[in-house]
C-alpha cells in the first residue's frame, strides 16, 4: 500500500508541476522563452479556424503572427473555449488573446485591452424565404446568437462598449426571444432549416454571414449593420509594460498599412477603420 501511495503522490506532483506559472512580468517571460502563447478560438471562420493543412489560420491568426514577428519571438496557439478565456485569471497559461474580443465595461474588470485592431459590422440575417425586410421587424421574434457574445448583449439591451472611437448605435430589436448557442455557426445551422422552423433570425458579425452565404447557406442579410464592434487584443490584468508594447505594435501595424492588407486578404474590404 505504501508503495502505491507514494507512486500516486509522485505522479500527482509531476502532473501539477507541468506548466507551473512563471512569476514576474508577462512580457519578461515572453522574451525569456522567446515564445508567445496566444489563445484564440478554433471555431470562428474566417477570423480563426483550422485550415486544410490542419493548422490554425485566419485573420486573427495572421494578426497574432505579425505581432509575434514584431516582438521578435516564436508563436504558439492554444484553443480553450470562449468562456474560459473571458473568465480572466489566465495565470500565465497564455500571454495574449487575439480572437476578436470586444472591449466591454464588464470584461474590463477581468481583462485588459491594449489596442483595438479592427472593427466588424454586426448584422442581422434571416432565411432566404423570410418576409422580414428590416431589422426592427425581428422584434418579438426568435433570434439566435452565440452565448456570451456582444450580439447576445445587444439583444438583451445591455451592450456597453468600452473603447474610444466606437460609433454610437441604437437597440433596434425590442423584446426578442433570444436563443443562445455555443457558436453562431450552430445558430446558422438552425436558421437554414427554414424560416421560423427554429429561428426567425440570427445576429452575428457580417463576415460570418458572408462566409456562410458563400458556402451555400440559404440566408440573406437584412438592413444595414446594427453596430460596429471594435475588436481588441486582450491580455491579463496587471502588466503595463506588455500593454504599452502591444499598443505601440498595433498602431505601427495600422500606420504602415499591414492591418489593412491582412483585412483585405481575409474579408476583401478594409475593416481596420470604420470610415
Amino acid at each position, binding site marked *: 500500500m505504501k508503495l502505491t501511495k507514494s507512486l500516486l503522490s509522485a505522479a*500527482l506532483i509531476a502532473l501539477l508541476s507541468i506548466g507551473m*506559472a512563471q512569476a514576474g512580468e508577462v512580457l519578461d517571460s515572453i522574451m525569456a522563452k522567446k515564445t508567445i502563447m496566444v489563445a484564440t478560438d478554433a471555431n470562428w471562420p474566417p477570423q480563426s479556424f483550422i485550415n486544410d493543412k490542419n493548422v490554425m489560420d485566419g485573420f486573427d491568426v495572421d494578426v497574432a503572427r505579425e505581432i509575434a514577428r514584431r516582438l521578435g519571438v516564436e508563436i504558439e496557439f492554444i484553443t480553450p473555449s470562449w468562456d474560459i478565456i473571458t473568465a480572466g485569471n489566465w495565470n*500565465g497559461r497564455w500571454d495574449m488573446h487575439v480572437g476578436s474580443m470586444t472591449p466591454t465595461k464588464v470584461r474590463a474588470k477581468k481583462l485588459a485591452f491594449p489596442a483595438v485592431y479592427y472593427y466588424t459590422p454586426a448584422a442581422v440575417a434571416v432565411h432566404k424565404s423570410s418576409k422580414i425586410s428590416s431589422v426592427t421587424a425581428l422584434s418579438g421574434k426568435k433570434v439566435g446568437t452565440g452565448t456570451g457574445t456582444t450580439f447576445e448583449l445587444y439583444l438583451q439591451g445591455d451592450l456597453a462598449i468600452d473603447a474610444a472611437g466606437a460609433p454610437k448605435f441604437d437597440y433596434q430589436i425590442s423584446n426578442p426571444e433570444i436563443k443562445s448557442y455555443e457558436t453562431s455557426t*450552430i445558430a446558422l445551422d438552425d436558421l437554414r432549416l427554414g424560416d421560423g422552423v427554429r429561428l426567425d433570425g440570427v445576429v452575428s458579425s457580417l463576415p460570418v454571414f458572408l462566409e456562410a452565404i458563400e458556402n451555400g447557406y440559404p440566408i440573406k442579410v437584412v438592413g444595414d449593420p446594427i453596430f460596429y464592434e471594435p475588436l481588441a487584443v486582450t491580455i491579463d490584468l496587471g502588466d503595463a509594460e506588455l500593454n504599452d508594447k502591444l499598443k505601440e505594435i498595433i498602431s505601427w501595424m495600422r500606420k504602415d498599412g499591414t492591418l489593412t492588407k491582412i483585412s483585405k486578404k481575409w474579408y476583401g474590404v478594409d475593416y481596420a477603420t470604420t470610415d
Partner: protein
Amino acid sequence: MIQDTVTEELLLRKPRFVFIIFALACIGFIIIDPSQSAVGHFLAPVIGDPAESGFHGRFVTSFTLALLFVLNLIAISLLPAFRYQVIVVWIELAVLFLAFFYSFDLSFTFIRSKIGFMITQGIFTTLYVSAISIAIAFVIAIIGAVAKLSSNGFAFAIASFYTSFFRGLPLLMQVYLIYLGFPQLGFVIDAVPAGIIALSLCYGAYMTEIFRAGIMSIDEGQWEGSRALGFKFGLTMRKIILPQSIPLIIPPTGNQFIAMLKDSSLVSVIGVWELMFLARTLGNKTFNHMEMLITAAMLYWMMTMVLELIQSRIERKYRKKQKR
C-alpha cells in the same frame, strides 16, 4: 437466457400475428409517406408521377414496403442457424444506417481529406488521455476501497466523502472546476493534465465502489485463515484478498474504460485537441459540420467495438479461471 428444450410454435408461423405486423407496418409507412422516395420512383409505372400520386401513391408504396418488410422477417426466421440470423439482421441494419447517412448528401472528399488527421491527432489523444486516466483511477480505487472497508473512522470518512463528492457532480463540471479552480491555489495546470485529473478522480470514485464489492465478495474464511496464520493487514490484502478479487474486478474495469473513452470528449471544452474537439472544429471553415460529426461518431463506435471485443475475451478468460 438459458437454452432449454421446450419448443413453442414460432410467432411468425401464426397468420394472425403476421397480419398484425403487416398492418402496423403499413400504417407506419403511410404516416411517413414514402411516395416521394426512391421506392416511389421505382413504382412510378404503377402510381404515375410520385409527386402527383396523392393518397393512391402513398398507399401503394406503403403497402409494397410493408409487404417487403414482412417477407424479410419471414425469410430471416427461416434461416437455419441463430448465427446466420444475427449476421443478416446486422447487415440489414448497417445498410439502412448507411442509406440514412447517405441521404444527408455528405461531402466524402472532405471526409477523406480530414480522416487521417482525426486518427493521428484525435484518436491518439483520446486514447492516451483515457489510458493514463484509467491507470490512475485504478490506483485511487484500490486505496479508496481499502479505506472504505477499514475500521479506521478517519480513512472511511475521507474515502466516503471523496466518492460521494465525485459521484455527485457532473463530470463536465469537474473538468471546469479543476481547470479553473487549481490556479486559484497557485497550481497552474495545462489542459491535458487537468482533463486527466478530472477523469481519474471521477472514475476513481466509481471504481472505488466496484473494488469494494470485489473485495467484499471474498469469503470471510480467507480473511480469518490468513489472520490466524499471523499475517498482518497489508500482507493479507496483498497476498490473499486482492489476488482473489482481481478477477472479479477486471471485467467491470474494462467497461469503465469503454465508458471513459466516450466521456473523455468532455475535456474538449478546455481546448484539448481530441476527437470530439476536432469533430466540432475541423468542418467549421467550410461549413461541413455534419461530415465531421458523423465521421467522429463512426470512429468512436469502431473504437468501442474493438474494445468490447477485447472486453469479452477478458471476461471469458476470467470466467474460465473461476470455474477451475
